């Protein structure tokens, strides 16, 4: 197997909550390899959100090592973390987190606007390509409030991949969506993954995790299970099983 793109060793994170110390992570070791599609699952309070924040370079561990694409993340400052997120990571959130009153295309352009090494024309071209990859090229000029939930999430996915990240982190990306739209989003992730894009999904829904290739279970701040998905499902196949009615008004 090739070298991991992400590698954590002995990761811990504790918070001071008043008098008590909360140990959110108690020593996590794991690796992610290129072209993987994995899900981190666990009950609320298990520490999976904390792990997600640290892996997403939004937060720093209390102790332990985190190597992302050759960068020693644990020793970086605020702006260096920003640059790392900007160049190496993509984010998809449960609540989409698109900028309001900003077109789909401009939302997708956002990460590239904070880079100083590409021209406006290149930014536009990259953003249009990303929008086309999620099937929304013709909605480029629409505002978020003119798009359905599924479309908004696809814009967010386009934004997460516009900078060619080594890893896309998706935090409960189907949490706010109905079954059919959720399947469409998972289908999109599976198609992106088949084009060798690495995706890390955080979810508490087992049937969503079943679309990934590897499942990591977190409990009480530790990884308790890390297995390949026994019976990996195809979102496309599941979509085809849905009755064709009752679909049009949902999109």
């Amino acid at each position, binding site marked *: 197997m090739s070298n991991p793109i992400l590698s954590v060793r002995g990761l811990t994170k504790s918070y001071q909550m008043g008098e008590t110390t909360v140990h959110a992570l108690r020593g996590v070791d794991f690796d992610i390899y290129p072209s993987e599609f994995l899900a981190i699952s666990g009950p609320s309070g298990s520490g999976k959100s904390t792990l997600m924040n640290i892996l997403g370079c939004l937060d720093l561990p209390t102790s332990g090592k985190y190597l992302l694409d050759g960068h020693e993340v644990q020793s970086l400052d605020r702006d260096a973390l920003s640059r790392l997120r*900007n160049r190496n990571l993509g984010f998809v959130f449960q609540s989409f987190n698109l900028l309001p009153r900003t077109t789909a295309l401009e939302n997708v352009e956002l990460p590239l606007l*904070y880079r100083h090494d590409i021209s406006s024309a290149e930014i536009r071209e990259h953003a249009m390509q990303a929008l086309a990859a999620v099937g929304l090229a013709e909605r480029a000029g629409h505002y978020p409030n003119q798009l359905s939930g599924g479309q908004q999430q696809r814009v967010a996915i386009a934004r997460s991949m516009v900078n060619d990240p080594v890893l896309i982190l998706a935090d409960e990306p189907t949490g706010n969506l109905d079954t059919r739209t959720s399947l469409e989003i998972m289908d999109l992730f599976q198609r992106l993954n088949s084009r060798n894009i690495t995706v890390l999904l955080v979810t508490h829904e087992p049937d969503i995790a079943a679309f990934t290739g590897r499942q990591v279970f977190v409990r009480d701040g530790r990884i308790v299970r890390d297995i390949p998905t026994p019976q990996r499902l195809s979102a496309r196949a599941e979509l085809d099983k849905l009755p064709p009615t009752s679909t049009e008004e949902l999109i």
Partner: protein
Amino acid sequence: MRFSALFRIALRSLSRNKLRSFLTMLGIVIGVAAVIAMLAVGQGARASVEKSIASLGSNVLIISPGAFNQSGIRLEAGSGTRFTEDDAEAIRRESDAILYITPLARAGVQLKAGGQNWRTNIYGVYPEYLLIRQWNVASGVAFASSDEKSAAKVCLIGRTIADNLFGAGTDPVGQTIRVKNVPMRIIGLLESKGQNALGQDQDDIVIAPFSSVLHKVLGGTYAQSFFASAVSTEAISTASMQAEDALRRRMKTPEGTASEFTIRTQTDIAQAATATSQTLTILLASIAAISLLVGGIGIMNIMLVSVTERTREIGIRLAVGALGGDILLQFLVEALVISFMGGLLGIVFGVSTSMFLSSTQGWAVKISPVSIFVAFGFSAATGIFFGWYPARKAARLNPIEALRYE
């Protein structure tokens, strides 16, 4: 992030809350307009004071006798010392910095001409008086040294007197007026000088030869004061000192005691008047500056609200890789756009207010380009100063908390 992109974001965010942005801007508009209008009024007042001081003449010195002071009781000016023509002659002889000098005998008199009469002051002076005050004759001629020697019953009158005795706009030259029943022939009409620094009408005056006034009207031998002019502006203080020395010698004032007269120069008078109008300008400008400060606090207030409202947006931007500096700049540009637009509107508003005051109230206003630049610069500085804290607050937000913010 490119500046054009920051500018676009700022405009978009400001247009999202049009009324709010406008009201915030209004604070700056009023502040800048007030600074410009108040400075215009202050400087206008100053310019008119300077003009009226210039109407006194050029490089003028006024020498007045001191008050009689014995056993602590002080009487009126002139009661202790009396000036004579010989004193004036002595000053002229001994002071090379003095160009012209004239004694001055003044009296309040009732004038009569035809069926009209008028109360005014008559000034008895040498012909040089008109040179000292740089006063020309509008019609007719000035009197000459020969008139002075012969105590001729001739006089010059000001526009106000001509208007009141002979009717507005008439030429009084050749007419005769009776001054305390002494008939005097009007040989010239003085150019109009308008009001002086104290608001007195300078055209309400009769000027006649010193000897004529002294002997035919007043019946005395003393001059009330001397009017002199220095050879140049630089020579005013020298002239003042030379005149003082000459007079002290003539009066045999012992060393170390105070002179029994005072010498005021045009510079002294100008300084006193300018100081007053400067105080006025400073007072007006500080009131205006306070309103600009209040406008700045308005910007800070609204920017803090804006940062709180847009916490999630800031979180998204930070998550996709904005640096602290990018966020800081974004909010700073927004504050600057408010203050710049406010500043520009303020200039328009301030200049038109000044013009309005000048045309309807007849106030002397003077809009200087400097005051416009200063006001605009201050508004921009206000934007940076009061926009800095909210912008820094935004830049320091924790991305995780900002993303979670509802």
